[in-house]
């Protein structure tokens, strides 16, 4: 199955990205696809509407409101605190529970109506080289 997720934490520095890793690992382990949008201090990497449209379910692992929540309207979803997917088998359990709820038809749906078409192309990610240029001896200098 195909899943999308949004992760966001209060400071937007660490848990946002740890949750991203945890959800990607969970999907890999269970043999599903997972695309994660991180809404952190470093900014948001909005995923394409096509990816959302193709998803079977949505995970909001957030301590804050989801930016652009309407993009996910109509999708079965689960919403929980960012820490609830990090560590041990938490991510796997959350994904399994969502799958079970989708299959049972008991998963709630994201409210609102989805945008018909994405009018704005998401901002392209900067190439990794450019992104990190000039940073090191950064962290450990």
């Amino acid at each position, binding site marked *: 199955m195909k899943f999308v997720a949004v992760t966001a934490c209060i400071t937007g520095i660490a848990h946002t990205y*740890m949750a991203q890793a945890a959800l990607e690992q969970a999907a890999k382990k269970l043999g599903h696809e997972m695309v994660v949008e991180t809404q952190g*201090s470093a900014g948001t990497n909005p995923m394409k509407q096509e990816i959302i449209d193709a998803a079977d379910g949505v995970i909001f692992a957030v301590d804050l409101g989801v930016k652009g929540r309407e993009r996910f309207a109509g999708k079965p979803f689960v919403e929980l605190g960012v820490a609830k997917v990090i560590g041990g088998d938490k991510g796997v359990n959350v994904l399994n529970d969502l799958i079970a709820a989708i299959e049972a038809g008991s998963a709630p749906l994201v409210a609102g109506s989805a945008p018909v078409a994405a009018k704005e192309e998401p901002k392209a990610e900067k190439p990794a080289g450019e992104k990190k240029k000039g940073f090191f001896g950064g962290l450990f200098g």
Partner: protein
Amino acid sequence: MVIVGLEATDKADATRQLAERLVAAGRVTDIETYLVAVAKREEHFPTGIEGGIAIPHAQSEAVVIPSVAVATSTTGVDFGAEDGKSNLIFLIAAPANGGSEHLEILGTLAYKVMDEDFRNELLNEKDPAVIAATLTREVQK
């Protein structure tokens, strides 16, 4: 900014020892201001995570440059993880108004920490310089 074999009475002590390294490196100006911010974030929910990791962090005006200090500890420090003490501790410091690309590096680090092989590589290494080099290499990928 790497401590191998950290001995600390509790997480406040561990955080302080790591923060002292950041101060010594000129990356944090006022240790008390920064530590209050870290403690406040820990109160929200502790940063210990299953698998022996802790990732205390804060954004603060006392931070000059986005930085990370790392400790390995054989005795471990209680950071509130469900499965016991943390043996690998990353203290992340972000400026109040951080440039997003630097914050992105911190996010990359948080993401990488979820990789068990990466964690073991760091835990088994006794040379602080090698630990710093390993982290730098991984977040640059």
